[in-house]
């Protein structure tokens, strides 16, 4: 009995009281800070980037494609790309994920973070999600599981993952959407009652990531249906996910 109580005490100590203020370790690769003045236009970063996320003149990074490997930061001799640990990244539009020198952390938080009024109205106090793993590597799935552990405890905001699309208010899609999973994803979409939201998590879901040109991928689902929220990462960080949802439902 004494042991059980002791362990419960440890459990409590690891809990993060304020998710909105919490930041990951300073080593974490979050929002890249770009500096055009330092950029020598050598193009090395563009060449080494595995997913063609970097644009030049002026330098920009598409976080929807970025797999946060840090190769560009390492190869840049002038320090024009430096990853910061700010990780509350998300956007309601695909264009919002393309960052330039002028992008600051405020761009990803309210009031700059804009979303339809009806979403706040309907889902503010409770959002039940169904996750569909459409071909990812299991990294994002692990992190979505971690959102509910004793540290992050997403359930305190009324945001939870449910067992069936029929019980859900929306879908969370991970993975590049494989040919074999595309029909099942579509079924899950139609099984979710209206009004519903669709959330893309991770570089694979947003842009196809490393797999975008592969023969076994079928991304036609994304052309057919409206996407409400994009959460970048490879894989996404639990803090990124929870804060993105909080911004989305107007509780940040």
């Amino acid at each position, binding site marked *: 009995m004494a*042991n059980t109580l*002791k*362990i419960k005490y*440890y*459990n409590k100590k*690891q809990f993060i009281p304020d998710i909105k203020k919490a930041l*990951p*370790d300073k*080593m*974490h*690769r979050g929002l890249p800070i770009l500096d055009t003045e330092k950029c020598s236009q050598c193009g090395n970063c563009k060449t*080494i980037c*595995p997913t063609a996320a970097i644009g030049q003149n002026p330098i920009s990074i598409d976080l929807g494609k970025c*797999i*946060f*490997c*840090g*190769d560009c930061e*390492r190869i840049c001799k002038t320090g024009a790309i430096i*990853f910061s640990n700010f990780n509350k990244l998300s956007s309601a539009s695909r264009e919002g994920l393309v960052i330039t020198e002028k992008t600051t952390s405020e761009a990803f938080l309210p009031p700059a973070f804009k979303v339809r009024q009806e979403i706040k109205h309907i889902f503010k106090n409770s959002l039940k999600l*169904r*996750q*569909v*793993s*459409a*071909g*990812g*590597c*299991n*990294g*994002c*799935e*692990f*992190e*979505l*599981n*971690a959102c509910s*552990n*004793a*540290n992050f405890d997403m359930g305190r905001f009324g945001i939870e*993952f449910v*067992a*069936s699309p029929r019980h859900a208010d929306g879908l969370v899609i991970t*993975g590049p959407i*494989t*040919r*074999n*999973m595309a*029909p*099942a994803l579509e079924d899950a979409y139609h099984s979710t009652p209206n009004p519903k939201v669709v959330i893309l998590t991770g570089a694979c879901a947003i842009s196809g*990531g*490393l*797999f975008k*040109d*592969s*023969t*076994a*991928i079928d991304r036609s689902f994304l052309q057919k249906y409206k996407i409400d929220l994009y959460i970048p990462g*490879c*894989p996404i960080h639990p803090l990124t996910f929870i804060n993105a949802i909080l911004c989305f439902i107007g509780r940040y």
Partner: protein
Amino acid sequence: MIKKYISDEYKIKKEGNVLSYAVPVADIVQVCNDLYFKHKLQLKLITALDDRENTGQFKIFYVFGISPENIFLLPYISLKDEEEFPSITKLIHEASSYERKIYTFFGLRPKDHPHMTQILLHENWPDKVFPLRKDFKYQTRPDYVDGVYESQKVEGEGVYEIPVGPVHAGIIEPGHFRFSVAGEKILLLKPRLGYKHKGIEKLFEVLPISDKVRLSERVSGDTSFTHSMAFCQSIEMLADIDVTERVKYLRVIFSELERLANHLNDIGFIMLDTGYSFGGSNCARLREVIMQWNERLTNSRFLRGVNMIGGIQKDIPIKLCHELLLTLKKIKHDFNEIIAVSQSSSSVINRLSGTGNVAKQVAVDHGLIGISGRSIGIKHDARIEYPYAAYNKLNFDMALEEKGDVLARWSVRIKEVSTSISILEQAILEMPSDNNILHNKNNFALRSNSYSIGIAEGWRGDIVYFVATDSKGEIARVDVRDPSFINWTILEHSVNEDIIPDFPLINKSFNLSYSGNDL
């Protein structure tokens, strides 16, 4: 030493850790039979290569490992103008999935294979389109065709089918399971995989070399580090790069951190599936400690972007080493307390013991490896049998159990947590301090027309990478063999005495990778 395995009539080519030799098609069954049954070598992989551009032939390689010398025998056959090869499945059962995969992706048919259907590609894929042939372009997306999935049926009074998946109740990967049941008892289970097939092996042939390392990190996300380590080791072998001593120790440290995090997660989830949320929640908390350490050490919670060919990107400063040792000590203490409380809960032990039994002979025939194998007394562990990185300098024992039920698989993981912590402590203390962590050759060339094998023990079991180069020294083929590819075949044999509500628990006790299997 090698003489006893290979008959004098074959011409042997030795490169790196690989001895390759051509065998006439008619002799291959006998050669494999001798290596497997007479010399008791482990079959690690069977794979094919489309070499029609160079030699006008398809080649099929049979990879056998010699432990502890860490050498691989590669007898191979060449097929010119024919698309059939002799199957060895009737003799060596574990060859079955490899041969089916070769049929699916290369269109080469194993003759007399007892169960010849395609795997991984579904009925929506057109006939006679074989994605790993060189004349198939990786961006092509063939039109969908209407096919019907037929699974084995059980008929009789009161027998009905329960289809589950591919979208499951928890946040897990997709797979389809079809149960035939009478009441609650499972009569037959047929798993169907391939939902995560995203053409990884084809991408390995086309992406630039630095992206290939990034790709290997995403074969199975939970094993990012060990997968990329196995791949880097196979390339280093081809380029004759020796990594420094410090890199070897760093690789051990990161690999064990990964094992620790995943074992803690599994131990917790198995308890959670019995309804024991105390154990589940506390193990998830300990896993989180490791994940945050991973991030502190390498910028990535999943140890991605760390490995590179010839070295490692991130060194561990001495100050962090001391802190890590303290954390490990705390985790050990904390973990032992949690397990002591959990093991005294009769509801947990009762539910785990005797559930999901695997018969030893069935496991041996299927070539079960990794923790699932060790839980039934099959002594395979690549860290000991094929010592790579710095494992030969560290002291540790193989964690073994005998019973082969869920409890045994749970207990093996508990033992391995202690082993991992002990390996980590040794590695941190013994790591040489003065070495460089990157190799000094900026441009390296791979041997042309050559083969190499990279092997590393992931937390599920051994991961094997087969790499072949063409005449220009470019990578022509990479075959990834995740342990799950072997171990998935055992799942349907482990539920025969059980009831439907036990299935999630049994599946979790194996916790196989869907992504690593489907590629």
